[in-house]
Structures are given as C-alpha cells and as structure tokens.
C-alpha cells in the first residue's frame, strides 16, 4: 500500500468523484477567480498601494518602450511621407533613408529620371515616379520679406507631375497638375528639356506648375488655392502658385507639400543630379517588382504596405534602438515587479496560510500568486500601451510644430501584443522571488498571528 492509499478502516475517504478532467478545469477556473478577486481587492482596497505601484511602474516603463519602439519604426518607415497608394517602392538597400529623424543625409537613388522612364516602359507597370523628400523654407507671397518668422519649414515631396493618379504622403498627384511643356506623350514620359519659367527671383523649369499643400501646411502659411508662396533656397527665392490644398489624412499632421521633383532639386541646389529617395510604381505588383529589380538590382524592392516591424532587422540603428528599449523595459519591469510583488506577498502571507490551512495545495497557492501578479502586469502593460500611444501622438504633434518633420514616432498594431508579451516575460522573470516568499509561508505562524 502506498502512502497515499487509504487504509482498510479508512473513513478518510475522498469526497470527490466524477471526471478528473472536469475537476481539474473547475479547480483551475476557481483559482483564477480567486486570484482575480484578490487582484481587484488589492487594487481597490485599503492595501492597494503595492498593486497600484506595480501597475503604474509597468505602465510607465512600457509606455517608454512603446515610444522608443515607435521611434525605431520611424527610422525605417519615414513617417507620413511614406504613405502612398503605390504598389511597389524601390529604395536604397540600407533602408531607413526616409526617416524623419535621420533621413537628410541618407543614401539616395542615382539617375532616377532615366531609370523611372525605363520602369514606365516595363510590362505591367502603369505609372512610376521618383520621389525626393527635402525640408524647405516657405512663406506666403504676401508675408513680409523682412520678417524671418514668416518662413515656415515644410517637408517638400518632389514627384513627377506628369503622373496623373495616385497619392504620396496623402496628397493626390493629379492635383499637382502637369505644366510640363516637355512632356512628350500621354504616359507622362518626360523630355529632359523644357521651357524656362522665370520666377520672382530664381529660375525653375516650365513644368513646375505649382505645389499642393497639406491642410496643415496651408494653415501655417495662411494661404489658399490660387495664392502664391515663396520658397527660399540660400540667396534665391522661387514663387510658386498653390494648386490645391488637401485635407490632412491619417494621424500625421506634419506640414507637407507636393512639388515637382525637378523644382525641388533646384531648391536643394542639386538640379544637375537626378536623385530620388525612392521610386514608386503602380501596376501589377509582381511585374512591378521584377521590373524594379532589373532596374535597381542592388536596391531594396518592397511592397508599399504599411511598415512591418520585421523591417527593424534591416536597419542597424533601428534594431539597436528597439533592442535596447526592450532590454531596459524587461530589466526595469522585472526588478520592480520582483521587489514590489515580493513585499506584497510577504504582507499577504496570512491569507496564503489560511488557504493552506483549509486545504489548498502549494501548487494552487502559487498559481493564485502567479495569476495575481501576471494580471497586475498585464493590466500595467495595457495602460502602458495607451499611455505610450498618447505620448507618441504628443511627440509627433510637437515635432510637427517645432521641426516640420513627418512622424517621429510610428505605431504598428503589433506593438500592442509585443508590449504585453514583454510585460509578461518581465513578470515571469520576476516571479521566482515572490513565489519563493509565498512558498516559505509558515502556516502556523500566520494563523496564530
């Protein structure tokens, strides 16, 4: 007879019967209910301090993680300027070139005009345009030239104005108009010559018909359709009419303007180069990708779906940033949870002792403690996500006002489960300490006390 078998006169028989799996399920659900009730009680009761502290600390730490991860995503995404309905994008192979925070000096595609023309001719490609992004200083035509504060910094997005459909950075390409006297066919193939268009001071190509402003940009410049703005570049100024003002779409309220890429290169002082941050293609995705790969075999050719977090692995800085944020969040959360939950469990020993006295096994008691801690941590992580997204929006709004950049922080839906998983891992790392305290509970000392 084993130790656990009843003796012949054993009246100490088991009182339970029936399906063992059913009992196990009932026990598990009951333990979870107890843990949740205790968590609720700890959060709302008089001894709520430590549970609340864990929730707040985890929330703050993970909010930081959300923001920093959003920064890392922005490094590979480029923020609102990368929003487009194109099917394929060709970018320099090292990626991250359009980032709002580091994109200025990033690699660019060379000889973009010629390659774009080749791409347009490829089967399955409907339209194509090179895209160049540069910050420019702009003022309303009517603003005082003597007032430096009249200039507003916009993110100018240079595209081929001959492309008559699609959108970039939320601004429709057809609104830019095609003032290109040099356009030589209906497909928008460009001649490299064009009549010169004298501006107020500098010289632009004739096809530089004007610019399309986002609503945010128009509001800051205080201009409307038909009015003119003046772009400054060094000692030169260029006057351009506003051809359209488009309502801001999405969450990115950065001031952006759509402009002829040739004109933008002139503003940037690189009119002789044919540079682009990327080339966008519309058409059959597979065919466009093949054509893009042929034209730029060393470049990154990717669908233009929303940014995927996997892109972090293609950018060293973004990867390092997100990894550091994750490690810091894990360490800070785990240490705080371990110490605070440990203190909470130590205070809670009498209740754990009662559970033992009325027959709860050690495993069941530890399961209750584990569930309560993980519930606290998950609650903190959800709060952290909300807080982090709120802070991210605030940072973006502030950056838009101060620096006229696109989104500095980019969010992806996967950030939510990612943050919760980080919190749970931190909780699991922290668990051994409070569990060891719970396991060492002296039942008699606790119930006698």
């Amino acid at each position, binding site marked *: 007879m084993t*130790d*656990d078998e*009843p*003796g012949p*006169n*054993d*009246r*100490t*028989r*088991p*009182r*339970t*019967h029936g399906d063992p799996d*059913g*009992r*196990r399920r*009932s*026990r598990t*659900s*009951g*333990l979870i*209910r*107890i843990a949740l*009730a*205790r968590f*609720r*009680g*700890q959060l709302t*009761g008089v001894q709520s301090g430590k549970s609340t502290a864990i929730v707040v600390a985890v929330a703050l730490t993970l909010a930081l993680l959300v923001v920093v991860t959003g920064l890392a995503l922005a490094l590979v995404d480029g923020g609102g300027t990368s929003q487009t309905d194109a099917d394929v994008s060709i970018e320099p192979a090292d990626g991250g070139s359009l980032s709002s925070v580091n994109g200025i000096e990033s690699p660019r595609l060379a000889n973009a005009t010629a390659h774009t023309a080749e791409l347009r001719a490829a089967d399955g490609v409907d339209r194509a345009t090179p895209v160049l992004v540069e910050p420019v200083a702009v003022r309303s035509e009517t603003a005082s030239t003597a007032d430096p504060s009249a200039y507003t910094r916009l993110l100018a997005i240079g595209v081929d104005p001959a492309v008559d459909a699609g959108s970039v950075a939320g601004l429709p390409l057809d609104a830019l108009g095609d003032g290109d006297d040099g356009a030589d066919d209906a497909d928008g193939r460009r001649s490299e010559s064009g009549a010169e268009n004298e501006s107020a001071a500098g010289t632009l190509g004739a096809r530089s018909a004007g610019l399309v402003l986002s609503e945010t940009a128009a509001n800051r410049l205080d201009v409307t359709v038909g009015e003119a703005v003046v772009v400054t570049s060094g000692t030169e100024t260029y006057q351009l009419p506003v051809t359209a003002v488009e309502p801001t779409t999405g969450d990115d309220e950065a001031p952006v303007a759509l402009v002829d890429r040739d004109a933008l290169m002139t503003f940037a002082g690189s009119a002789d180069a044919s540079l682009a941050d990327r080339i966008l293609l519309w058409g059959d995705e597979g065919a466009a990708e093949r054509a893009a790969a042929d034209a730029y075999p060393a470049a990154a050719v990717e669908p233009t779906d929303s940014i995927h977090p996997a892109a972090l692995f293609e950018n060293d800085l973004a990867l390092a940033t997100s990894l550091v944020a994750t490690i810091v969040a894990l360490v800070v959360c785990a240490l705080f949870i371990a110490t605070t939950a440990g203190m909470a469990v130590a205070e809670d020993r*009498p*209740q754990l002792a*009662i*559970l*033992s*006295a*009325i*027959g*709860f*096994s050690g495993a*069941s008691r530890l399961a209750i403690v584990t569930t309560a801690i993980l519930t606290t941590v998950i609650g903190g992580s959800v709060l952290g996500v909300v807080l982090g997204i709120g802070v991210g929006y605030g940072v973006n709004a502030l950056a838009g006002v101060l620096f006229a950049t696109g989104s500095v922080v980019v969010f992806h839906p996967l950030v939510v489960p990612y943050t919760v998983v980080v919190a749970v891992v931190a909780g699991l790392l922290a668990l051994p300490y409070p569990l060891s305290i719970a396991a060492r509970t*002296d*039942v*008699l*000392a606790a*119930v*006698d*006390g």
Partner: protein
Amino acid sequence: MWGNNGPVRARSKLASEVSSINRTPTQSTTAGPHEPGDPPAVQLDGVTHEYTAGSRLRSTGREPVRALADVSLSIASGEVVGIRGPSGSGKSTVLHAIAGLLVPTDGSVALFGTDLTDCSGRKRLRLRRQHVGIVFQHFHLLPSLSARANVALPLVQLGQSKATRRRRATALLERVGLGDRLTHRPGELSGGERQRVAIARSLSTDPDVIVADEPTGELDTATSESVLDVLTSVADDRAVVMASHDPTTLAWTDRTITLCDGSIVDETDQDEPRRARPAIGASGGDDP
C-alpha cells in the same frame, strides 16, 4: 438565555436548521453512524511536541520549547470536546496536531485510524482538506471575497463546479442565518457574522472533524451564544474540538480536557448530557 439548565437547553431554530445541513456535498462519503468498534474520530497517543529554534516564532532560539508532553486522548464522532487551559498550555498545538497542520515530534495523531504522522505532507493536506474543518479565533476570512465566496473556498480545491460551490455556500450561509449577507465582504459584516461565515466555511467540505480555536474569543456574550449554538449543533456525526479558556463556551461541550504546561491535568464530563440532536441529513432532500 438558557438559565440554570445551561446552554444545552437553549436550542434555537437556527441550530435546528444548521443540523439539517446535508452532510454529503459530493455523495461519495462512507461516513455513517458511528459503530462500536470503529476507530475513534480523533486519537492522540503519547503526543509530545517541541518547537525547535528557528522553526516557530515562539521558539526561544536557545532551548527547545515543549508545547505538548505525552498527551493522549480519544474523541468519538458526535462528541463535542472542549480544551481549556491558560495561555501557552498547548491548546492550540493540540488543535493544530489534530488538523494535521503540524506533525508532533513524538507520538501519533490518527483520524479514524489513519495515522497522520505516518502520512506524507501531501496526503496530510488532502486529509485535512476533505475531513477537517477549521474555525479560527480571528475568523481569517479573505477580505476581497464575498461571504459566499469565502464559504465556497475549500470546494475550489476539491474541484467542485462553480454551480455546486455557489449552491452549497448559499445553503450553508442560509443555515447559519446569513442568507441576506451572501455578497457582503467580511469588512461589511459584524464579528459574529464573520465567525458564522467561518463556521459555514469549515462545514463546506462536510468534514468529519471540526477544530475551533477560541471561536468566541472576539465575540460578545450574545453573539457567542449564537455562534456556539451553530457550532455544536453540527456535531451529530462529527467530532467537534473547541479550545477556549472561557467557561461559558466550555459549558456547551460534552467533555472538557484541561491542559497545563502541555500535559492533560484534568478531564471532566459535563453533568448533563448535551442536547439530543436529530441525525444530520435527516431532512432528506435538502441537498445544497
């Protein structure tokens, strides 16, 4: 009150209701009427217990403290036994040994013939879970749970379904007169109500033995009567062991054992038999 006839005459309607609690929440009990020749519900033989340094808060850290010295006693099912003695005499240690909360350093403690000192910790826990109900002086209810959830607590570990737990806990609370306090948390209950919840909790697994450590220690006289009425009325087929140094409380028992310095120094039967109680479960279909 009970006047000269003592508390045994003071059987209340509440106690009658409590005694009708069906003993079998899970139907498979083999416990029946106690037959001559059956092992006693509780048997302590030569129990000695010393607290060694570091093992208990009461330890001096120098010499072991002898809490019990060669204690032997036998308690039958249906018997209500009181243990009295001054503080530090070993009353609580006896209860803890019966409940399997501690293993004495010497001697044996048996429940219905099963020696707890020979059992593994796991089996001792299981025996306690299924066959021993504990009532503490300080109630020890979980403050975040409702009265019903507190009563149902032991049934969670038994794997009873939520519906069964609620049904059983509701019936027990109704029987101890707290049917209108089901969802109240301990902080919203009076001392007497909390102790009645604790008694209901101790009954939830239909135990064969109930140990109560100073069950009226924090209650006023009137509330104590109510609690003792409930506690003693469930003893029909159970052994009830109460530790107290309150003579009024001990007057509700069938037999009183006096401890001093860990040894039994006196054992007294009550002059008058405790009230006759109807068999538990006599109400037939009143299964909570």
